[in-house]
C-alpha cells in the first residue's frame, strides 16, 4: 500500500460569523467575512495526522478546490501536520456552482493519480450541509466507505470504523483503499502552533486545474433564491387558561 492519505479541506465562512443574506437574495454575503477551514475537515486532517504520527501511514496530502484563498486553508492543514498540498483552481462562475458532484469527481481523479490508500473528508460542510461528497467520491471510485466515523483503526489492509448512526453506534470493517468521513467525536483537532505555521510555509502546494484531471465542472443545479429564516414573532401573554384555549383555537392549533 502507498501509505498515502488524501484529505479534503473546504474553505467556508467561519462558524462564529453571523450570516447575512445578500439584498438580492442570490446568496449570502461573503465579501470581507471571516473564512476558515470547515470544522469537520479539521477533524479529518487531525485524524490523518494522528495516523501518520502512529506510523500507520506515510504521507498526508491536503486538497482544496476553490479560488486563490483556498491556499490559506491548505496552509492551515500543512501547519497541522499535512506533508504537502494540492490546490485545484476553481474560480468565478465555476466556483459559485461548485458542489459535491464536481468536488467528488476531482477527488476521485486525484485519489487515483496519487494512489491514495485512504481518502478522509469531513462528513459535511457547514455552509451547504450536503453530506454527499464522501459518499459520491466512494461511488465514483467504487471504493468502500466508512461515513460518520467516530473511531477509526487500521488493521493491516482493512479499516475498522465505528459509525455514529441514528440507533447508536455501528462497527464495520472495510478493505482499503477506502473513503472515510469524519464525524464530530472522532477527535479534537489540534491548534496550528506558530512554529508549525512558520514551518508550513516551506511545504509545497501544487497547482492543478480541473481540466488537467479531465473533470467537467458543469453543474446540474441552479440556486433560485436564498432567504433568511422567518423572524421570530413576539409571544403574547394571556391571563387565564380559558383565554389560552380560545387563542389556540383561533390560531388553528387545537
Amino acid at each position, binding site marked *: 500500500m502507498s501509505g498515502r492519505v488524501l484529505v479534503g479541506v473546504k474553505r467556508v465562512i467561519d462558524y*462564529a460569523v453571523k450570516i447575512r443574506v445578500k439584498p438580492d437574495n442570490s446568496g449570502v454575503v461573503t465579501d470581507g467575512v471571516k473564512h476558515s*477551514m470547515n470544522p469537520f475537515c479539521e477533524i479529518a486532517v487531525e485524524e490523518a495526522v494522528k495516523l501518520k504520527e502512529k506510523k500507520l501511514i506515510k504521507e498526508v496530502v491536503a486538497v482544496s478546490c476553490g479560488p486563490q484563498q483556498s491556499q490559506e486553508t491548505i496552509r492551515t492543514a500543512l501547519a497541522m501536520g499535512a506533508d504537502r498540498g494540492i490546490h485545484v483552481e476553481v474560480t468565478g462562475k465555476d466556483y459559485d456552482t461548485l458542489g459535491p458532484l464536481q468536488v467528488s469527481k476531482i477527488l476521485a481523479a486525484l485519489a487515483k493519480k496519487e494512489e491514495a490508500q485512504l481518502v478522509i473528508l469531513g462528513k459535511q460542510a457547514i455552509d451547504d450541509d450536503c453530506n454527499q461528497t464522501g459518499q459520491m467520491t466512494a461511488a465514483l471510485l467504487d471504493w468502500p466507505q466508512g461515513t460518520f466515523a467516530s473511531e477509526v483503526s487500521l488493521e493491516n489492509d482493512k479499516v475498522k470504523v465505528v459509525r455514529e448512526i441514528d440507533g447508536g453506534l455501528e462497527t464495520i470493517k472495510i478493505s482499503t483503499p477506502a473513503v472515510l468521513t469524519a464525524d464530530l467525536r472522532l477527535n479534537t483537532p489540534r*491548534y496550528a502552533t*506558530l512554529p508549525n505555521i512558520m514551518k508550513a510555509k516551506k511545504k509545497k502546494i501544487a497547482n492543478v486545474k480541473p481540466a488537467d484531471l479531465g473533470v467537467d465542472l458543469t453543474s446540474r443545479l441552479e440556486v433560485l433564491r436564498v432567504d433568511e429564516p422567518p423572524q421570530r414573532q413576539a409571544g403574547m401573554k394571556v391571563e387565564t387558561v380559558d383565554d389560552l384555549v380560545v387563542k389556540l383555537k383561533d390560531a388553528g392549533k387545537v
Partner: protein
Amino acid sequence: MVIDGSTANSSFYFCKTRLAHSLIGFQADGRIWLKQQGAALDGALSAFRSICGDEGVSLGEAVREQHGRDESVHRCRPPDVVVFPRCVEEVSALAKVCNKHNLPIIPFGTGTGLEGGVGALRGGVCFSLRNIDQILDLHPEDFDVTVEPAVTRKTLNAYLRDTGLWFPVDPGADASLCGMAATSASGTNAVRYGTMRENVINLEVVLADGTVVHTAGKGRRPRKTSAGYNLTNLFVGSEGTLGIITKTTLRLYGIPEATVSAVCSFSSVQAAVDSTVQILQAGVPIARIEFLDDVMVDACNRFSSLSYPVMPTLFLEFHGSERSLEEQVNITEEITQSNEGSDFQWARDAETRSRLWRARHDAWYAAQALRPGCKAYSTDVCVPLSRLPQIIVETKEDLMESRLTGPIAGHVGDGNFHCLMVVDPSDPDELHRVHLFTERLARRALAMDGTCTGEHGVGLGKRRLLCEELGPSGIQAMQKLKNALDPKNLMNPGKILLQGES
C-alpha cells in the same frame, strides 16, 4: 449580610465601625435623594431612547435584575434602567446624558465577576455593552489585536486559531476581555504569561463626562513605551469606577509547539508548596502550577468520578518545543522527588490533558457539590512565594478550628490561592464564622506583605480591607485620582473606595 458589606440596616458589623454615623446619616437622607434621582431618570429616558433606539433601552424587571448581579454571593442590586449602546459614540452620548442628570453609570460586560462589581448600589443606569462585539485590527506579525467589550476570551481564541496565536489570560469564566481589563483579571497561566496588567497595551475609555480617551494614543500599539503617565494601567483594575472601557488592545502569544501536563501528589502541603517555590527558583518557565489540597481533591474525585490519591496535589503544565519540554520536565521531576512527591501522571495529547485538568477546572462545582444546597464563596489572597507554605498551613488549621468547609485550590506559582468556602446561606452562625474566617485570612495575608485580592478585585466586599492594605495615604491618593476623573462620583459608585458611596 456578612459578606455584602454595604447595607447599613442589616449589617451589625458596620455598627462597630466609625462609619456607622455617616451611613446612618446617609440612610436618613436616602429617601429624598432617591426621589430626586427618580425624577432625573424620567427626564433622561427619552434622551436614552433617541440615542440607542427604543429597543436599546430597557426598564423590564427581569432585564434589570439580570444586570444587577454577577457570579458572587452579593445580592442582586438592579439598576433603574439598562441601556444597550451599539458603538462608542453612543456610549459617549449616553454618558453625557447621565452626567447632565447626575445618574450613576454601571458598565456591564458578561456579569461573570466575583466581587459584586455590577451591583447598582444607588440605582442608576447600567450600560450593557453586549452589542459592541467586534474583533478589530488583528496584527499577527506584531502579536496584537484590539477587541470590543462583548468579545469574550474564548471567542477571541477561537477567532485566532488559524493564526497560531492565543491570548493566555484565562480566569476560568468565559469573561469579556474588556471586563477582564477592568478587574485586572488573571488565571492559571499567569505564572508564565502574566495577568491583564502585563498584557493590555492600549485602552479606549469613555469617562463620566462622555470624553473618549485612548490611554496610549489612538491606534497605538508599541510593545513598550515610556510616554507620560501610565494611563493604560490606571484603568486596568479600576472596576468601572473611572471610566467605561470600550476597546482593549491586547498582547498575544504564539501557541506553544508542544504541551505536556502532569499531576503529582505529596504527603504534606508543605512539601507541595516547597516544590513550587523550588521549581520557580530553578528557572523552569512552567506554564501552569496549580495546587489542590486533600479536601479539594476528594471533592473533585467524587464530582468527576476520578481517582486521584486524596493528598495535597500539584497540577503542572509545561509549554515549549519538544526538546525544551524534556529539559523542563526532568528538572521538575528531580525537585518533586526530592520533596517525596509521587510519580508523575502524564498527559501529552489534547484529550488526555483535558481529562487531567478537568479536576482543576471543575473545582468550583465540585466544592459546591460537597454540600448540596449551599452557596460557594471564594477567597483570593496572594502573598510572596516564600510565605506561601506558612499561610496555607495556618489557613487549613483555621478552617478546621472554625469547622468550615473550605477546599483550597490555587495558583501557587503566583503565591495566590483560593479557599472555596461552601456555606449554608440559611445558617447565620456559619455565615458569621465564614465572615470572620475570611477577614482573618485577609489580615494574615496582609501581615505577610501580601494582598487581600490577587485577581478578583475589590468590588463591594473588600473595601475596608483595601484601606488596611494601602494605608491612609495610599487610599487618599486613590481617592484624589477618582475625584479628578469623576468629580460627581457617577462611575460605579460604592466600589473599590469606601467614601465613594456618599
